[in-house]
């Protein structure tokens, strides 16, 4: 597997550590700890235990027969991250970072959350490991994801509403960073995606690479070969990063990240950072960014709270520039249709985030032969979204 990032945290020209001096010592310590845990068999064994016994891994790789027939082309497999405990891939990372926090002697964890899936996964793990937990969430997201807010509170976390800026994930991240600056001695910040300053993008990817490793083994057992394409949604990009990583050096496997085109790339209402942004610095790293001419960060828009972020992980920026992966975007309406299609054909209600990856399949699968295969990362389940989907379907007259 490729060896990036380099020792300064760069994937090619993207990544780095753009944070206030107050956090630098903590980041250097975290990098050191992470390097040790990565090589430590006992830590890895303990993490495996929790992934299997607590989280329910490995998650199935499901051949979606009816969906395949409907699309009329490549065989479609779904990597069922929605079947993880708490309902999304997010817990792969929070278990890893939570266990690290315990080993580093931290008593408190904090996190930002958009859709609430990362917040729930953090609150869950914090409770299980006996850590205090504070979750920052934008007011707009609190409104959209009421169910997850209740779940976090039920799990004993305190949820702090963030009312600055766009009142979404970007602003929740700002507030979590401010908390960390002030409490860095006793607090570990569990960043939920492959964003933030080094070592987060690499560390979160490594905790998520279990998705890709399992997929590789499972498909080999079923079909005796590698997939032709992997398709995953990209907000910050953690499920895609972990899904792609074990395949990066398998050049025959096409890697496709699907961003949220919101109301369309020609409007101001989208969250397609790699498709429509340009390089910039936000939340500690240099990557693609939605921004205006003066370098002010733009407000992203997506029907999916988990993709509603104007930045993206620096490794994705690198994979785009190097041409190894390609990034496309689908609209709110296309995602909604895919959401309903999967429910009707396969009896699976997936997260709106994952529905973006599925929506792209309608363009991809029919162009491929029936001998070819595509694996879609079904990053989460859709219980959290049913209320907003019901409203959106009515509004869009779909």
């Amino acid at each position, binding site marked *: 597997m490729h060896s990036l990032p380099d020792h300064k945290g760069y994937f090619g020209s993207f990544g*780095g*550590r753009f944070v*206030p001096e107050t956090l*630098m010592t903590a980041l250097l310590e975290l990098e050191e700890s992470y390097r040790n845990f990565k090589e430590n068999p006992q830590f890895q064994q303990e993490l495996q235990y929790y992934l299997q016994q607590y989280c329910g891994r490995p998650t199935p790789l499901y051949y979606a027969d009816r969906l395949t027939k409907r699309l009329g082309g490549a065989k479609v497999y779904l990597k069922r991250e929605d079947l993880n405990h708490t309902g999304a891939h997010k817990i792969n990372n929070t278990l890893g970072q939570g266990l690290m926090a315990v080993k580093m002697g931290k008593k408190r964890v904090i996190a930002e959350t958009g859709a609430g899936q990362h917040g729930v996964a953090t609150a869950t793990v914090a409770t299980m490991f006996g850590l205090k937990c504070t979750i920052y969430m934008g007011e707009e997201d609190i409104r959209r994801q009421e169910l997850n807010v209740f779940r976090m509170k039920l799990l004993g976390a305190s949820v702090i509403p963030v009312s600055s800026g766009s009142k979404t994930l970007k602003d929740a991240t700002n507030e979590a960073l*401010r908390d960390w600056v002030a409490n860095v001695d006793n607090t570990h910040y569990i960043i939920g995606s492959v964003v933030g300053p080094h070592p987060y993008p690499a560390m979160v990817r490594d905790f998520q690479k279990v998705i890709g490793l399992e997929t590789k083994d499972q498909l080999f057992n079923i079909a005796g070969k590698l997939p032709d394409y992997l398709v995953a949604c990209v907000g910050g990009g953690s499920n895609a990063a972990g899904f792609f990583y074990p395949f990066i050096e398998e050049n025959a496997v096409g890697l496709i990240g699907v961003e949220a085109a919101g109301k369309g790339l020609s409007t101001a209402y989208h969250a397609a950072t790699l498709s429509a942004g340009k*390089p910039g610095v936000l939340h500690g790293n240099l990557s693609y*960014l939605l921004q205006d001419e003066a*370098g*002010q960060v733009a407000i992203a828009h997506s029907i999916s709270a988990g993709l509603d972020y104007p930045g993206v992980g620096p490794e994705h920026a690198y994979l785009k520039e190097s041409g190894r992966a390609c990034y496309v975007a689908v609209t709110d309406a296309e995602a909604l249709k895919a959401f309903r299609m999967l429910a009707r054909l396969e009896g699976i209600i997936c997260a709106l985030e994952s529905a973006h990856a599925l929506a792209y399949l309608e363009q991809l699968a029919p162009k491929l032969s029936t001998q070819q295969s595509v694996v879609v990362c079904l990053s989460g389940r859709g219980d959290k979204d049913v209320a907003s989907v019901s409203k959106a379907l009515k509004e869009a007259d779909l």
Partner: protein
Amino acid sequence: MNRIDSTFGRLRMENRKGIIAYVTAGDPDLETTEKIVLKLAESGASMVELGVPFSDPVADGPVIQAASARALKNKVTLEKVLDLAGRIRKYSDIPLLVMTYYNPVYAYGNKRFVEKALASGLDGVIIPDLPLEEAGLPAKSLREAGLHYIYLLAPTSSPSRIKKTVTSASGFIYCVSVAGVTGARDFITTAGLRLLKDTRSLTDLPLALGFGISCPEQVRALGDQADAVIIGSALVKLIEKGGTEEEVLERVGSFLNKFRC
């Protein structure tokens, strides 16, 4: 000679402590900021820091966040703040710094930024999200143009980081008094004092203490442990209170006057 160096030279000869006043440029508007800067210069400020508003100011507390949001509503940009510095420079010799997050500089282009900063008569640049490891290139090009790139140190900075920072630093070192964001506090933490002491033992460069400085008592209690203090949120709050332009100028002027020593 850079105005920051000559000012600290003079302060040391007169055995006085410097007052560095921070305002968010464009709050309430750029014309008023210009008048406020002149008022600050008349009222005992030794240097002025012009804050460039940013959409995501992670190192700032609520007061400067709100000022930043107001200035952004006025469409204030890095370029407009540098133009403001240029106008002030025409009739004042007070050392001027800009404090900006890195993305506006990155979007403007490093080279273009240095040229414009020089042409505007700027003396120094502070970029709170550009630590030692990332500051290399911008710091070097600013310095070659005769401007200071001001490094920050925090109570969490390790001894080896303090050592590396003092070797790279010029102008002065911005010592952050607390592990936290900007905002007025009424005491100085022992961690802040220890940082000053540790840094002093390694360098003769002027040390400025910032974050949380809001009253003359704090400054007097500091004695000669710092060469200057930076006053930000406390001033911004007085500007936020509003009223007529005369009232605002009178308010910031009399506030700053209390710090003369």
